[in-house]
């Protein structure tokens, strides 16, 4: 494998170099231009931490409620589910029309979605969606 690497045509990496160059230029240009063009004011309100327009209160190392963690888990469930829907959706139109193939495929994806509903039901009973 090392022998193969030694014979690599370095020039074929030129596009990668161009891409990296563009990324670096863009980042540097932004910083430099905002320094040059932008008005420079200073004050106490500019020095405080940015928190989406809210007043930052208390320490950032505050302990979050476990519910946020549970929400993240539910998000993960749907997030991963979508990965499987895409290949299914791209294959479905290519199935032969007029055969039972389409029904079988529909059945499969419905079963897959059903398993997610079970997980959702479980989360519901566990109280993941109760915000009080």
């Amino acid at each position, binding site marked *: 494998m090392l022998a193969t690497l030694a014979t690599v045509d370095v020039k074929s990496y030129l596009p990668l170099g161009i891409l990296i160059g563009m990324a670096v230029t863009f980042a540097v240009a932004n910083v430099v231009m905002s320094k040059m063009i932008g008005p420079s004011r200073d004050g106490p309100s500019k020095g405080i931490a940015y928190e989406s327009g809210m007043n930052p209160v208390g320490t950032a190392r505050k302990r979050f409620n*476990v519910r946020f963690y549970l929400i993240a888990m539910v998000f993960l469930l749907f997030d991963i589910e979508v990965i499987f829907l895409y290949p299914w959706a791209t294959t479905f139109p290519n199935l032969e029309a007029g055969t039972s193939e389409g029904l079988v495929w529909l059945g499969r994806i419905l079963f897959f979605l059903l398993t997610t509903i*079970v997980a959702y039901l479980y989360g519901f*009973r566990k*109280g993941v969606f109760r915000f009080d």
Partner: protein
Amino acid sequence: MIERIGYLWPEIVLFIGACLTMVIGLSPNADMRKQTGLIAGVSLLIAAALGLATPAAPTWAILPGIMPFAKPLIALVGLLLLLVNIGSVDRDEEAAIAAGKPFNPLRVTGAEFYAFFLFSLMGAMLCATAGDLIWLFLALELTSLPTYVMVVLSGRGKKGFDRSQEAGVKYFFLGALGAGIFLYGFALLYGGTGTTQFVEIAQHFAAHGMNPIATVGLVLALVGVSFKIAAVPMHFYTADVYQGSSGGVAAFLAFVPKTAGMISILLLVSTVGWAAGQGSLPPAIESLLWALAVLTMTVGNVLALLQSSLKRMLAYSSIAHSGYMLVGVIAGPGDGSFVSSGIAAVLFYLLCYGVMSTGVFAVLASLERKSGGEAVEVESLDDIKGLCRSHPWLGWSMVICMLSLLGFPPILGFFGKVPLFTSALGAGHVVLVVILALNSAIAAFYYLRVVAGVMIDPESDSGVRDTGVPARVIAAVISGVLVLGLSVFGNVFMGSGEKAAEVRRFVGQSDEHDTDSVPLDEHSEAAEDEHHAVSH
């Protein structure tokens, strides 16, 4: 692909059972919550019956007969394990709720425990159904991911929970390492052969021989899967994890991941060696398995000698038993008869090991002692001294199962070990057989120490008593009775083990046949027969 559902009914039943327990176990009604164990038991019974009826010899399976043997085995030992585990989670929480504490779904874990219990067994069954690498990877992960949670949930009391969490973290992280290794192996195996189907991989090897990428892949896959069976380079977690989890969950860990891992190793190894028409495995794979087997047996037995905690001792003994089973894998299928087939020996040994180790752990799970105001599980041999006098049922079950683990002649473990010896001898591995015999002799020391302690020594005064969960005692007694019963009627299962160990051979395949895409999922038997020369 849709035809494959016919082989999956046991798994489907377990899946439905798991979904039901997951939802019903969170019911605010205490009586509903109590039904989860029952649901799990019923679904396991149905799965066992359906598993027995699984049709054999599908064209896509590399070990066509393994399903009708492995599925009922997993379901029935699963039932035994369920008895040991009933009432092990939520015991204090349920008592508090009965005494008037409000029900909080976040505090109750019975639903998850039983659902994960069933999912893990389902994963082990899916390993037996696996026809390709993707399926096997998912099945192995489905077996092990739930067990990590079960370990964490199994602790009782503050100290117990601390320990079970530590055990769970160690188990999870090393498990993830093992998974990463065998996944990389699978990727290379796919790259080296261009397919993920076991049958096609075997055809590829038969036609073109091994290539370096596939060999490295197979080695990594075997090393990674050896985590599941706790073989030596990946055994570090075993003692801590068994010690930290409750007796019931430790019994589960000793059987279910081991069965899944052993079946996976058989499937992976089947794609090379005898399937390619050679008598033995390729040298690289054979020397790897040889080293694994010898190290696993020896390290397991020697370290078991040094343990004072019973559970740690059993953990190392379970490592040693994995080593014994690897001997059968090295021996290969022989001429297909039970005495010469190492695969049949491995499958039968899994049955024996499942029953006897569950029995021993069930006895441990049935006993507790007071320590600092908390009821904790028995720990050392001193705690169970004189058990035959204080708790005769438990004591004698312990004696029977321990003697069986040792391989004492007229008891089950002996009949499990003999085929391992004969198959390895038949394949010409004399040194391996000698090491196996020496290891059995080392093992006698620590097993007999426990047997003598339980039978002869005077009762201990450490206040050991029953945990008050009758299911565990019942499980222990059933295991003891099963060990004795199988010692007499085991030949029935030897026959089915022999059938399960049937292998495919792909001899005399021309290259053009190999490059054909074989329609594996359509039942074109006539076309298949041209491609596969099935042995027997």
